């Protein structure tokens, strides 16, 4: 299974994703420069974290117009799995591949720390190996992860099982105190209706190795591998 990691100017978790795919999962992977217009030969695309275009104006606002995004849309349309992590998630929102938008964290500051996530939908390609209500620990590192959508969109997300991860306590309780950024419905990750496009704020690629003290992120990458 071949992965493509899209590199926007300002991406900075591109190498981390590459490292996990190649050296931890042992899978072929290539960087894809944002000016590419064709994406052939890839079985899964990752939009990594970082500060594409400095996150100026709004996170992901300028990156979504990168030439490669057309091809990403086509790829997603054809059912190909697309994973947006952090800034990648923000780009997917701006591009309209996922509904809603990100606001600044309610604390107004950037937050880098471990959080707990409750797996709400273990049936999409990225979560097949998990089970419902499973609690995972993963780091976040963002200043704008406060997910917003209008009430109707939220209701649709909920009804269709598109909320994939919610912030929770270590014990799995979805409380306001466990929500690090003020995100509506404690949303940490959502997918599209078809389930092949996933956006998450936490960084699974930062927790895939024992030496880093946490391997919970592997669930996502190992799940994708199962689909082939």
């Amino acid at each position, binding site marked *: 299974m071949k992965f493509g990691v899209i590199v926007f100017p300002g991406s900075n978790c591109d190498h981390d994703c590459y*490292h996990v795919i190649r050296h931890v999962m042992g899978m072929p992977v290539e960087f894809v420069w944002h000016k590419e217009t064709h994406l052939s030969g890839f079985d899964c695309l990752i939009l990594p974290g970082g500060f594409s275009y400095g*996150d100026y104006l709004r996170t992901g606002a300028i990156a979504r117009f990168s030439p490669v995004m057309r091809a990403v849309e086509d790829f997603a349309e054809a059912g190909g799995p697309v994973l947006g992590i952090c800034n990648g998630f923000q780009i997917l929102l701006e591009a309209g591949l996922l509904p809603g938008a990100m606001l600044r964290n309610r604390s107004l500051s950037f937050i880098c720390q471990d959080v707990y996530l409750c797996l709400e939908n273990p049936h999409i390609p990225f979560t097949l190996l998990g089970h419902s209500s499973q609690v995972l620990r993963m780091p976040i590192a963002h200043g704008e992860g406060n997910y917003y959508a209008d009430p109707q969109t939220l209701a649709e997300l909920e009804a269709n099982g598109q909320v994939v991860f919610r912030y929770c306590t270590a014990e799995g309780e979805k409380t306001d105190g466990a929500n690090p950024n003020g995100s509506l419905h404690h949303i940490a990750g959502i997918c599209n209706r078809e389930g092949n496009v996933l956006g998450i704020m936490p960084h699974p690629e930062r927790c895939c190795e024992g*030496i880093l003290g946490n391997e919970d992120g592997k669930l996502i990458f190992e799940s994708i591998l199962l689909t082939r």
Partner: protein
Amino acid sequence: MQEPPITPELVARHGLTEEEYDRILKALGREPTFTELGIFSASWNEHCSYKSSKPVLKLFPTSGEDILIEAGEENAGVVDIGDGLVVCFKVESHNHPSAVEPFQGAATGVGGILRDIFTMGARPIALLDSLRFGPLTEPRNRYLLHGVVSGISFYGNCMGVPTVGGEVYFDEAYQGNPLVNVLCVGIARRKEIVRARASGTGNPVYYVGSATGRDGLGGASFASRELTEESERDRPAVQVGDPFTEKLLLEACLELFKTGHVVAIQDMGAAGLTCSTAEMAARGGCGIEIDVEKVPRREPGMIPYEVLLSESQERMLLVIQRGREEAVETILRRWDLHAVAIGRVTDDGLVRVKDCGRVVAEIPARALVDEAPVYVREEREPPYLRETRNLDLRCLEEPQDYQGILIRLLSSPTLASKQWVFRQYDHMVRTNTVVLPGSDAGVVRIKGTDKALALTIDGNGRYSYLDPYEGGKIAVAEAARNLVCSGARPLAITNCLNFGNPEKPEIFWQFRRCVEGMAEACRRFNTPVTGGNVSFYNEGPEGAVYPTPVVGMVGLIEELGRMAPITAWFKNEGDLIILLGETQEALGGSEYLKEIHGRVAGLPPQLDLEREASLQQACLEAIRAGIIHSAHDCSEGGLAIALAECCICGPGHGRGAHIDLFAPEIRTDALLFGESPSRIVLSLEAQHLPQLKGIAEGRGIPLSLLGQVGGDHFSLEMSASGLYIHLPISELKGIWSGAIERCLRI
């Protein structure tokens, strides 16, 4: 624009003395032009020329087995770590800009030090920051803390370089003049190190990066003056940083270096285009000719003087191999970067600046760099020392409520958890951070090897205020101890020396004594100085800051696979708690004395370098033997605070401990809160105690059993004196971790 004639007033306004002006006349053999006067002024000011500090900095040891490039030869020294890899690291101050515009001041400080490292061909792998502010009871200081931390966070996070450690102190001495020092560590293949010395007559000189504007005009001279009320209006000296452009520069430069087309590179830092041109030429023993007309500009109507002295950020000067222009430009274009050939290398040793064909400046490069004036400043022991030395402990009443004091100290911002700060920094990006902020040192693995680097930054200004020599020694010793507690062997240091106005003899005395102390400690620990930064004129309306030497140290862990790095916090129920080293009656300069008794007095703890070295060797040996579960250095706040930290500083809920102290020959407050150095708190399984004893005895280091890890309380007792502290861990953790946030919510 008509250039103003050179008058004595104009010379003085450029911060040049009469003697210095005479020197200029001699160097040129004629009167300088207006542009040349500006160039001399920028190159010869304190910040760029080190004219006051140079003779003193010679006291530092700079060579060693692992040192490939020594301090001063390049932008930063280079240390060999084997496997064909080298480390280079350096610390930079941005105190003055941060005082007037904390967010951008701190952000551009991060930008500058990152450029220093990646222009050497190294990829930045970590940042650390050392901060000093006035008390958080003042709104202005809260504003500064907010601004500085978010500025560092903004720039460092965007660059994708993790900030893995740092320190923050709060003290009235920094009221009006905060300190913002940032350390960057980079890694390169030994073969790919890039120099900053121009060579090859006819090679083109390229300007790469952001266009030049009028911002930051005269920033270096700004940093060479005391802060006054007017500084607040010193608009041009503060710039706005663009981390996005810098990220592109970083990636483009590292890609360029791999091609071998780059002969030399230097970033345009303080004094901008002027300094970088002169330094590259002087280092290479050649000349450089540039045409200012070709320099990309953001604003119309700029005169050569302004273009040459602007300190606009995110700009680089490159010398490349003739004939490789096309290849170089292609790479830079791919990264959307401006690249313009603005000149070439010459063989006449002159920095020549042309504007529309007319020569506006022509100065021997050496005159600007190597022949800058050097001063042997007058020095005198400051009179305040006579008073502070006379601390009579008998006048200090011993407190009754030790539990209350422990709580007060744990919630004082200087001792409290700095989580509020480091949580705003991305400390995990690059997925190498094996020990996150919160332990004694940050640890970063090096992918593709079995190695890791341990990194720390330390310096206690109050100690140096009370005795600069001891303060300097302790800063180095503490840094080394922090690394050793993580299981690393200290390699080398960088430093930032933050002092007041060096033209005042008392300040200069502090400066020299401090460097002497640091130098002696560096020699003993075999940790040469690879570079650093001197920041003078740190004076607010109320006088100079504490003399504050900040030491950044890098240590090596050779076999990460065999042994995970050690952290500060207790791990297992039932482990024994051991103190390596000895507690003396050292209350002078302590946090306890300041916080509880409101006194800054006494002599700081006296450090015996031999004893310290043995202690560190013993600790490292025990860690390498694989018998240690946690190691924490005992520093500010003393033994009681160190023990409490071992219980609460780890991730999760923390661990309780039962501690039983012996009846001592020293006062109880000194036992609990005195800051005698050369002490480490360890925890290990009982069965390994004999082995640890053997190691300690072998090094002549005393060892005492303090208690045991367990339960959910921190209990500390000493039956002889009736002392009894008993507090739930959850409460202790809450007090300590939330203290800074509570201060900010006032």
